[in-house]
Protein backbone atom coordinates (compact mmCIF):
# COMPACT_ATOMS: atom_id res chain seq x y z
CA UNK A 1 0.00 0.00 0.00
CA UNK A 2 3.01 2.23 -0.32
CA UNK A 3 3.39 4.88 -2.97
CA UNK A 4 6.53 5.44 -5.00
CA UNK A 5 8.22 7.12 -2.03
CA UNK A 6 7.37 4.22 0.26
CA UNK A 7 4.59 6.12 2.02
CA UNK A 8 1.09 4.82 2.43
CA UNK A 9 -1.28 7.30 0.89
CA UNK A 10 -4.21 8.64 2.82
CA UNK A 11 -6.58 7.43 0.12
CA UNK A 12 -5.29 3.87 0.39
CA UNK A 13 -5.57 3.90 4.18
CA UNK A 14 -9.18 4.98 3.95
CA UNK A 15 -9.89 2.43 1.24
CA UNK A 16 -8.41 -0.31 3.41
CA UNK A 17 -10.51 0.79 6.37
CA UNK A 18 -13.67 0.88 4.28
CA UNK A 19 -12.99 -2.56 2.80
CA UNK A 20 -12.19 -4.09 6.17
CA UNK A 21 -15.33 -2.72 7.75
CA UNK A 22 -17.45 -4.13 4.92
CA UNK A 23 -15.81 -7.54 5.39
CA UNK A 24 -15.86 -7.61 9.17
CA UNK A 25 -19.64 -7.62 9.28
CA UNK A 26 -19.73 -11.05 7.63
CA UNK A 27 -16.41 -12.63 8.55
CA UNK A 28 -17.74 -14.39 11.64
CA UNK A 29 -15.02 -16.93 12.07
CA UNK A 30 -15.90 -20.39 13.39
CA UNK A 31 -13.87 -21.30 16.51
CA UNK A 32 -10.39 -22.58 15.71
CA UNK A 33 -10.67 -25.53 18.10
CA UNK A 34 -13.83 -26.80 16.41
CA UNK A 35 -12.40 -26.55 12.90
CA UNK A 36 -9.07 -28.07 13.92
CA UNK A 37 -10.75 -30.94 15.80
CA UNK A 38 -12.95 -31.64 12.77
CA UNK A 39 -9.83 -31.70 10.59
CA UNK A 40 -8.14 -34.15 12.96
CA UNK A 41 -11.22 -36.40 12.88
CA UNK A 42 -11.29 -36.19 9.11
CA UNK A 43 -7.65 -37.20 8.88
CA UNK A 44 -8.16 -40.13 11.28
CA UNK A 45 -11.17 -41.31 9.26
CA UNK A 46 -9.33 -41.09 5.96
CA UNK A 47 -6.34 -42.96 7.45
CA UNK A 48 -8.68 -45.69 8.73
CA UNK A 49 -10.39 -45.86 5.37
CA UNK A 50 -7.02 -46.09 3.64
CA UNK A 51 -5.85 -48.80 6.04
CA UNK A 52 -9.07 -50.76 5.39
CA UNK A 53 -8.61 -50.54 1.64
CA UNK A 54 -4.96 -51.55 1.91
CA UNK A 55 -5.90 -54.52 4.12
CA UNK A 56 -8.59 -55.67 1.70
CA UNK A 57 -6.17 -55.36 -1.21
CA UNK A 58 -3.56 -57.41 0.66
CA UNK A 59 -6.07 -60.18 1.51
CA UNK A 60 -7.16 -60.30 -2.13
CA UNK A 61 -3.53 -60.50 -3.28
CA UNK A 62 -2.77 -63.35 -0.85
CA UNK A 63 -5.91 -65.22 -1.99
CA UNK A 64 -4.89 -64.88 -5.63
CA UNK A 65 -1.36 -66.07 -4.82
CA UNK A 66 -2.66 -69.12 -2.95
CA UNK A 67 -5.02 -70.07 -5.79
CA UNK A 68 -2.19 -69.65 -8.26
CA UNK A 69 0.14 -71.85 -6.22
CA UNK A 70 -2.50 -74.59 -5.88
CA UNK A 71 -3.20 -74.56 -9.60
CA UNK A 72 0.49 -74.55 -10.47
CA UNK A 73 0.97 -78.09 -8.94
CA UNK A 74 -1.91 -79.76 -10.80
CA UNK A 75 -1.54 -80.82 -14.47
CA UNK A 76 -3.41 -78.63 -16.83
CA UNK A 77 -6.03 -80.36 -19.02
CA UNK A 78 -3.90 -79.83 -22.11
CA UNK A 79 -0.69 -81.30 -20.75
CA UNK A 80 -0.26 -85.16 -20.96
CA UNK A 81 -0.15 -87.14 -17.72
CA UNK A 82 3.22 -88.49 -16.69
CA UNK A 83 3.79 -92.13 -17.90
CA UNK A 84 3.51 -94.72 -15.13
CA UNK A 85 5.91 -97.70 -14.93
CA UNK A 86 4.26 -100.94 -16.12
CA UNK A 87 4.00 -103.77 -13.61
CA UNK A 88 4.05 -107.05 -15.58
CA UNK A 89 2.27 -109.11 -12.94
CA UNK A 90 -0.43 -106.53 -12.61
CA UNK A 91 -0.77 -106.41 -16.37
CA UNK A 92 -1.09 -110.20 -16.65
CA UNK A 93 -3.70 -110.31 -13.92
CA UNK A 94 -5.76 -107.64 -15.43
CA UNK A 95 -5.74 -108.87 -19.03
CA UNK A 96 -6.92 -111.97 -20.83
CA UNK A 97 -6.14 -112.72 -24.39
CA UNK A 98 -6.55 -115.90 -26.47
CA UNK A 99 -5.59 -116.55 -30.01
CA UNK A 100 -8.38 -117.30 -32.48
CA UNK A 101 -6.74 -120.64 -33.36
CA UNK A 102 -6.96 -121.89 -29.75
CA UNK A 103 -10.10 -123.76 -30.68
CA UNK A 104 -7.89 -126.20 -32.56
CA UNK A 105 -5.91 -127.15 -29.50
CA UNK A 106 -6.37 -130.60 -27.79
CA UNK A 107 -8.15 -129.09 -24.82
CA UNK A 108 -10.99 -128.45 -27.14
CA UNK A 109 -11.12 -132.19 -27.89
CA UNK A 110 -10.86 -131.66 -31.50
CA UNK A 111 -7.67 -133.13 -32.71
CA UNK A 112 -7.23 -133.73 -36.27
CA UNK A 113 -4.25 -135.87 -35.41
CA UNK A 114 -6.11 -138.31 -33.10
CA UNK A 115 -5.81 -141.03 -35.62
CA UNK A 116 -2.75 -141.38 -37.69
CA UNK A 117 -3.45 -142.13 -41.24
CA UNK A 118 -2.16 -145.53 -42.49
CA UNK A 119 0.08 -144.99 -45.25
CA UNK A 120 0.54 -147.70 -47.79
CA UNK A 121 4.03 -148.90 -47.61
CA UNK A 122 5.52 -150.36 -50.70
CA UNK A 123 8.98 -151.33 -51.33
CA UNK A 124 8.26 -152.59 -54.69
CA UNK A 125 9.33 -150.32 -57.29
CA UNK A 126 7.18 -149.75 -60.22
CA UNK A 127 8.91 -148.78 -63.27
CA UNK A 128 11.97 -147.78 -61.33
CA UNK A 129 10.25 -145.70 -58.67
CA UNK A 130 8.70 -146.42 -55.25
CA UNK A 131 4.97 -146.14 -54.93
Amino acid at each position, binding site marked *: MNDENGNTSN*WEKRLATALKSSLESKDKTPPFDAVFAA*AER*RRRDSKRQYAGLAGAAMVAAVAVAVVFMINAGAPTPDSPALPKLLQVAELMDSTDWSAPSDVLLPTHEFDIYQELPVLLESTKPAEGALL
Partner: protein
Amino acid sequence: MRDADALENNPEITRSALEAIHGQVFGWALSRCNYDRAAAEDIMQQAYVELLSGNALFRKKSTLKTFVFSVVQNLARSRYRRLATRLRLVREHAANADDSFLPEEPDRNSDVWLAVRHLPVRQRDIIELVFCRELTIEEAASVMGITTGTGRVHYDRAKKALRAALGSLADDMK
Protein backbone atom coordinates in the same frame (compact mmCIF):
# COMPACT_ATOMS: atom_id res chain seq x y z
CA MET B 1 14.50 -28.55 19.88
CA ARG B 2 11.09 -29.44 18.65
CA ASP B 3 8.19 -27.36 19.88
CA ALA B 4 5.70 -29.44 21.86
CA ASP B 5 2.94 -27.51 20.14
CA ALA B 6 4.30 -28.36 16.66
CA LEU B 7 2.33 -30.53 14.28
CA GLU B 8 3.64 -34.10 14.06
CA ASN B 9 4.10 -34.16 10.29
CA ASN B 10 4.80 -30.45 9.90
CA PRO B 11 7.37 -29.57 12.55
CA GLU B 12 7.74 -25.94 11.44
CA ILE B 13 4.08 -25.21 12.20
CA THR B 14 2.66 -24.86 15.68
CA ARG B 15 -0.95 -25.12 16.59
CA SER B 16 -0.85 -21.76 18.32
CA ALA B 17 0.61 -20.10 15.20
CA LEU B 18 -2.26 -21.51 13.16
CA GLU B 19 -4.75 -20.30 15.72
CA ALA B 20 -3.29 -16.79 15.52
CA ILE B 21 -3.98 -16.53 11.78
CA HIS B 22 -7.18 -18.62 11.80
CA GLY B 23 -9.52 -15.63 11.43
CA GLN B 24 -7.67 -14.18 8.46
CA VAL B 25 -7.36 -17.55 6.76
CA PHE B 26 -11.08 -18.13 7.20
CA GLY B 27 -11.80 -14.74 5.65
CA TRP B 28 -9.68 -15.71 2.67
CA ALA B 29 -11.39 -19.12 2.41
CA LEU B 30 -14.76 -17.37 2.55
CA SER B 31 -13.73 -15.10 -0.28
CA ARG B 32 -12.47 -18.09 -2.31
CA CYS B 33 -15.83 -19.84 -1.86
CA ASN B 34 -17.89 -16.86 -2.96
CA TYR B 35 -18.93 -16.25 0.66
CA ASP B 36 -20.52 -19.66 1.13
CA ARG B 37 -19.78 -20.31 4.81
CA ALA B 38 -20.28 -24.08 4.66
CA ALA B 39 -17.91 -24.40 1.70
CA ALA B 40 -15.38 -22.13 3.43
CA GLU B 41 -15.45 -24.23 6.60
CA ASP B 42 -14.98 -27.34 4.49
CA ILE B 43 -11.99 -25.79 2.72
CA MET B 44 -10.52 -24.76 6.09
CA GLN B 45 -10.86 -28.29 7.45
CA GLN B 46 -9.28 -29.69 4.30
CA ALA B 47 -6.43 -27.20 4.57
CA TYR B 48 -5.77 -28.26 8.17
CA VAL B 49 -5.92 -31.92 7.08
CA GLU B 50 -3.24 -31.18 4.49
CA LEU B 51 -1.09 -29.52 7.15
CA LEU B 52 -1.67 -32.28 9.71
CA SER B 53 -0.81 -35.03 7.26
CA GLY B 54 2.26 -33.20 5.97
CA ASN B 55 0.99 -33.24 2.38
CA ALA B 56 1.45 -29.48 2.47
CA LEU B 57 4.86 -29.20 4.11
CA PHE B 58 5.94 -25.80 5.40
CA ARG B 59 9.67 -25.21 4.89
CA LYS B 60 9.84 -21.59 6.02
CA LYS B 61 10.37 -20.27 2.49
CA SER B 62 7.65 -17.70 3.16
CA THR B 63 5.66 -16.58 6.16
CA LEU B 64 3.23 -19.11 7.60
CA LYS B 65 0.33 -16.85 6.70
CA THR B 66 1.37 -16.71 3.03
CA PHE B 67 1.85 -20.48 3.01
CA VAL B 68 -1.55 -21.27 4.51
CA PHE B 69 -3.25 -18.73 2.23
CA SER B 70 -1.63 -20.54 -0.73
CA VAL B 71 -2.88 -23.90 0.52
CA VAL B 72 -6.41 -22.51 0.78
CA GLN B 73 -6.11 -20.92 -2.67
CA ASN B 74 -4.98 -24.20 -4.25
CA LEU B 75 -7.66 -26.24 -2.54
CA ALA B 76 -10.34 -23.78 -3.60
CA ARG B 77 -9.05 -23.81 -7.16
CA SER B 78 -9.08 -27.57 -7.47
CA ARG B 79 -12.46 -27.78 -5.78
CA TYR B 80 -14.10 -25.19 -8.00
CA ARG B 81 -12.47 -26.51 -11.13
CA ARG B 82 -14.33 -29.75 -10.50
CA LEU B 83 -17.55 -28.05 -9.52
CA ALA B 84 -17.54 -25.36 -12.20
CA THR B 85 -18.86 -27.54 -14.99
CA ARG B 86 -21.51 -29.09 -12.79
CA LEU B 87 -22.58 -25.69 -11.46
CA ARG B 88 -22.79 -24.20 -14.94
CA LEU B 89 -25.02 -27.06 -16.07
CA VAL B 90 -27.27 -26.63 -13.04
CA ARG B 91 -27.60 -22.90 -13.68
CA GLU B 92 -28.33 -23.43 -17.36
CA HIS B 93 -31.15 -25.85 -16.55
CA ALA B 94 -32.62 -23.92 -13.61
CA ALA B 95 -35.43 -22.05 -15.33
CA ASN B 96 -36.72 -20.39 -12.20
CA ALA B 97 -33.65 -19.87 -10.13
CA ASP B 98 -34.33 -19.65 -6.44
CA ASP B 99 -32.06 -16.98 -4.95
CA SER B 100 -32.75 -18.03 -1.36
CA PHE B 101 -29.46 -19.96 -1.41
CA LEU B 102 -27.33 -17.15 -2.73
CA PRO B 103 -24.22 -16.81 -0.61
CA GLU B 104 -24.02 -13.94 1.78
CA GLU B 105 -21.49 -11.41 0.55
CA PRO B 106 -19.98 -8.66 2.60
CA ASP B 107 -22.15 -5.61 3.00
CA ARG B 108 -23.83 -5.54 -0.39
CA ASN B 109 -24.65 -1.86 -0.04
CA SER B 110 -21.05 -0.89 0.42
CA ASP B 111 -19.97 1.19 -2.58
CA VAL B 112 -16.38 0.25 -1.90
CA TRP B 113 -17.13 -3.45 -1.92
CA LEU B 114 -19.25 -3.20 -5.05
CA ALA B 115 -16.44 -1.40 -6.84
CA VAL B 116 -13.99 -4.13 -5.78
CA ARG B 117 -16.39 -6.85 -6.93
CA HIS B 118 -16.52 -5.28 -10.38
CA LEU B 119 -12.75 -5.52 -10.83
CA PRO B 120 -11.24 -8.34 -12.90
CA VAL B 121 -10.57 -11.43 -10.77
CA ARG B 122 -6.82 -10.98 -10.28
CA GLN B 123 -7.12 -7.29 -9.52
CA ARG B 124 -9.87 -8.06 -7.03
CA ASP B 125 -7.79 -10.79 -5.40
CA ILE B 126 -4.68 -8.67 -5.00
CA ILE B 127 -6.69 -5.76 -3.59
CA GLU B 128 -8.34 -8.09 -1.09
CA LEU B 129 -5.05 -9.68 -0.08
CA VAL B 130 -3.20 -6.38 0.31
CA PHE B 131 -5.90 -4.15 1.74
CA CYS B 132 -8.01 -6.59 3.74
CA ARG B 133 -5.67 -9.46 4.60
CA GLU B 134 -2.63 -7.26 5.18
CA LEU B 135 -0.18 -9.09 2.91
CA THR B 136 2.55 -7.33 0.98
CA ILE B 137 2.33 -7.28 -2.82
CA GLU B 138 5.10 -9.94 -2.95
CA GLU B 139 3.24 -12.20 -0.55
CA ALA B 140 -0.05 -11.66 -2.35
CA ALA B 141 1.56 -12.51 -5.68
CA SER B 142 3.00 -15.66 -4.14
CA VAL B 143 -0.43 -16.71 -2.87
CA MET B 144 -1.95 -16.06 -6.28
CA GLY B 145 0.79 -18.01 -8.02
CA ILE B 146 2.02 -15.08 -10.13
CA THR B 147 5.31 -13.19 -10.25
CA THR B 148 5.81 -10.12 -8.12
CA GLY B 149 6.03 -7.98 -11.26
CA THR B 150 2.68 -9.21 -12.52
CA GLY B 151 1.27 -8.70 -9.05
CA ARG B 152 2.41 -5.07 -9.06
CA VAL B 153 0.80 -4.50 -12.47
CA HIS B 154 -2.54 -5.92 -11.25
CA TYR B 155 -2.27 -3.89 -8.06
CA ASP B 156 -1.65 -0.60 -9.88
CA ARG B 157 -4.42 -1.20 -12.41
CA ALA B 158 -6.82 -2.13 -9.61
CA LYS B 159 -6.03 1.05 -7.70
CA LYS B 160 -6.57 3.18 -10.80
CA ALA B 161 -9.87 1.45 -11.53
CA LEU B 162 -11.02 1.93 -7.96
CA ARG B 163 -10.07 5.61 -8.00
CA ALA B 164 -12.15 6.01 -11.15
CA ALA B 165 -15.10 4.02 -9.80
CA LEU B 166 -15.09 5.64 -6.37
CA GLY B 167 -14.65 9.20 -7.56
CA SER B 168 -16.99 10.76 -5.07
CA LEU B 169 -15.84 8.49 -2.30
CA ALA B 170 -12.27 9.34 -3.16
CA ASP B 171 -13.12 12.98 -2.81
CA ASP B 172 -14.58 12.26 0.61
CA MET B 173 -11.46 10.38 1.50
CA LYS B 174 -9.11 13.20 0.68
